[in-house]
């Protein structure tokens, strides 16, 4: 376990450190997240009485688009400066590279979401102080990160890579979006853990299935 865990953490640390030094991705994703709320608020006519029913949908639309935006950049730096080749030559298993990249994206997205959630709670007028909501956000973001990392590794090599990722990403993560919106609606409405019903297990199944498949497939994507 130690053999897998250490390289994963080193990769996460490297990527987060790079990000924290420049901060351009964090800033742009945060600003983008605020813009999404602005657009949806008027597109959906978020009148005072309706915000509890609309808020989870807006929340997840913002998170999903922000995830694509962040994931689009996950391999760009490595691709441009040959860092990925370096990683692939180093004595680190492909699984560790994949898990490191996915964990980076997860941590990054969770940080962005943690910053956005209180702002959304104020602007959309719902209570974010709910363990179930936080759990839903964690599981949903994990699903985004796992699938997004795999597709990002592919999309970064294709022509028009910024366009390719959403085309690959959105149809596949649709179950996560549906389940997250449903679970969040219940969590915001004050339901208990049992009251969330089958939605959290559904996200859990999605996460588990792709956590098993994606590292295996990733090895083929990055091979020479």
């Amino acid at each position: 376990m130690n053999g897998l865990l250490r390289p994963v953490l080193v990769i996460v640390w490297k990527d987060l450190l790079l990000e924290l030094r420049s901060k351009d991705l964090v800033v742009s994703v945060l600003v983008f997240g605020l813009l999404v709320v602005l657009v949806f608020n008027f597109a959906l006519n978020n009148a005072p009485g309706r915000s509890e029913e609309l808020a989870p949908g807006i929340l997840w639309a913002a998170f999903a688009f922000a995830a694509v935006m962040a994931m689009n950049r996950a391999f760009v730096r490595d691709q441009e400066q040959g860092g990925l080749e370096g990683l692939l030559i180093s004595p680190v298993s492909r699984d560790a590279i994949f898990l490191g990249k996915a964990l980076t994206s997860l941590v990054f997205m969770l940080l962005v979401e943690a910053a956005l959630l209180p702002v959304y709670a104020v602007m959309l007028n719902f209570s974010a102080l709910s363990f179930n909501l936080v759990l839903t956000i964690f599981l949903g973001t994990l699903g985004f990160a796992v699938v997004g990392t795999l597709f990002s590794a592919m999309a970064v090599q294709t022509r028009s890579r910024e366009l390719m990722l959403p085309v690959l990403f959105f149809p596949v993560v649709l179950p996560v979006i549906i389940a997250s919106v449903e679970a969040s609606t219940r969590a915001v409405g004050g339901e208990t853990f049992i009251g969330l019903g089958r939605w959290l297990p559904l996200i859990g199944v999605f996460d588990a299935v792709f956590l098993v498949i994606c590292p295996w497939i990733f090895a083929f994507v990055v091979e020479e």
Partner: protein
Amino acid sequence: MASSQSLTSPSSRMPSAKTVMAAITGVMMVINLYLIFMVAPTDSVLGHVQRVFYFHVPIAIMSFLAFFVVFAGSVMYLITRSPKWDAVAHAAAEVGVVLVTLALITGIIWARPVWNTWWTWEPRLTTTLILWLIYVAYLMVRSYAPTQSKGAIYAAVMGIVGFVDVPIVYYSVVWWRSIHPSPVVGPFAQADALDGTMALVLLYSFITFVFFFVYMVMERMSLRSMEEALGRIRFTLRRSGR
């Protein structure tokens, strides 16, 4: 020109597997149309429009089977690296996209008179739409990849991930639907019962479309082998300095 024609396509001399398949499919399709319009009884509730069913359902089932072929071909390609498997998956995906498109269009035309709406976010319809999107992405990532071999791998990845994802999509929409029932349900939403003759015609139509599918895949695969042959000749020409 004429002499080299026979040289490059020796198969045109004898009836190839493709020609045989085309003949069988054609005959089966004629019989199929006869069965659909002459033998199958007119539905007592829906009338003649119910005959769309004999095309729509087999095409929809066939398109799902097509993506099973894509999945199997993708897994085999990643394991064995034989281009043969990639060719099978590629052809099945392209034909599958054609079939899904058709299933969606006939489904919309069916829904209007029967359910009184063009579109409803019903689990089968929604899953079919997602299937279409996933396999369009499959074809896109293949053609946008930097090299052909990379394209084959990326496509295989999408073929596997997409196929695994479809059941999850289906159940998520089923559960979503049980909470958000559609307000528009036509007067005949429940009129799906089939009598014996109808079921047999449907089964025959399905078998016909299996043959049609295999024939289309064969045509697509031979197109691909020609593209590869052309690539090889271009390569030789370039090397010989022309």
